[in-house]
């Protein structure tokens, strides 16, 4: 594990192999669960950070859009951070006394592999669309939350194609099943890149979520901590209000499922790199994101519901 370079981008196999190393090095804290298989039959692994038992839990997924490489890289760094800081960070210890953390680092394994081997700019899943030459569904338009509404395309060739039906994508369905079977998630955080935003529901509608004020206050405080490290400036707000109306998104689904603390990050591109953020930016990005993530997780711990 000590030889792993967290400041580099890695292929899917390397990340999966590193997960095994992490699990073996921190076997009393970290376990690896397979929550299902992707369309192309790749395993989908969740890292569970737990001191035992089945506690209320926090969900973090990274890289549902495969080309947003800094997201997956941040996921790897973050998982390592949780494992290495546990035992020397009292707040993290207290968090894990009360809650479990589940991390899905490669939320779209087929897409991620495709970005490495075929098309670096691929965003969607790799499922075939009957009757179309174009493949893939935008997995963040495929959730049962205003499915098929504004801000999603019905064209299979579009990068925001919503798919034939809600949860049609096995990668989405696997997460839905896992979250529902667990039944006690209190927070759902999805990590994207690159326009420096921290968002909360809704995206499918521009109406205020019932907990809008609380979510906004949490997001604002989290971003203040994030900004304190390198000065990266974020905007905070509902998806609809700070980007655009987008239906079928994951955090809208989780929120409507009763997971109040649902957030989506858009990590940094403070330069002019977009999806090609240089690897030198991975650790600064992950480090600042950690401050915001930790704030949200601590808040969730301190505000049981």
């Amino acid at each position: 594990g000590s030889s792993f370079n967290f400041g580099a981008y890695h292929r899917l196999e390397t990340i999966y192999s590193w997960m095994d190393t992490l699990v073996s090095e921190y076997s009393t804290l970290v376990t690896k669960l397979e929550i299902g298989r992707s369309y192309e039959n790749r395993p989908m692994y969740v890292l569970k950070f737990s001191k035992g038992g089945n506690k209320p839990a926090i969900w973090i997924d990274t890289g549902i859009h495969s080309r947003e490489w800094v997201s997956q890289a941040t996921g790897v760094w973050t998982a390592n951070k949780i494992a290495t800081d546990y035992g020397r960070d009292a707040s993290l210890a207290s968090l894990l006394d009360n809650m479990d953390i589940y991390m899905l680092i490669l939320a779209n394994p087929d897409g991620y592999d495709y970005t490495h081997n075929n098309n670096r700019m691929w965003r969607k899943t790799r499922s075939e669309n009957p009757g179309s030459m174009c493949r893939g569904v935008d997995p963040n338009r495929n959730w049962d939350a205003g499915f098929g509404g504004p801000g999603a395309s019905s064209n299979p060739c579009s990068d925001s194609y919503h798919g034939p039906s809600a949860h049609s994508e096995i990668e989405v369905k696997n997460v839905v099943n896992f979250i529902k079977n667990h039944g006690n998630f209190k927070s759902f955080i999805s990590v994207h890149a690159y326009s420096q935003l921290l968002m909360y529901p809704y995206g499918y509608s521009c109406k205020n979520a019932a907990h809008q004020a609380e979510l906004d206050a949490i997001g604002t405080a989290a971003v203040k901590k994030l900004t304190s490290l390198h000065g990266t400036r974020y905007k905070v707000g509902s998806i609809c209000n700070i980007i655009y109306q987008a239906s079928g998104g994951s955090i809208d689904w989780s929120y409507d499922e009763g997971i109040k603390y649902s957030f989506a990050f858009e990590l940094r591109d403070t330069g002019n790199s977009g999806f090609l953020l240089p690897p030198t930016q991975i650790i600064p990005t992950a480090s600042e994101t950690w401050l915001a993530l930790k704030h949200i997780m601590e808040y969730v711990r301190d505000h049981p519901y």
Partner: protein
Amino acid sequence: ERLFIGDQVIRINAESEEQIKLLQALETREELELDFWLSPVSMELPVDIRVPSSSLSSVSEILNANNIAYSVLINDLQERLDEEKFEMMENHIKERS
């Protein structure tokens, strides 16, 4: 493997609702094969578009004809991808050794 030789990524800071609407219309022009990294939403947010080399002149013409200013973020996407790949390969070799 798909290559992006000569593809550019351009940034537009739209100055009016009219410009936003025109950029939204561009999104639907499938023949241009544009990849909107950041979609046209409001004047507050930039619009980033990957323009395939084959569409560069058409897009430039459309933007100029409508007085929409743009800057080039990435001049040749493939050069960036080559750099990224080289760096990954170097890291891989380092880790193995």
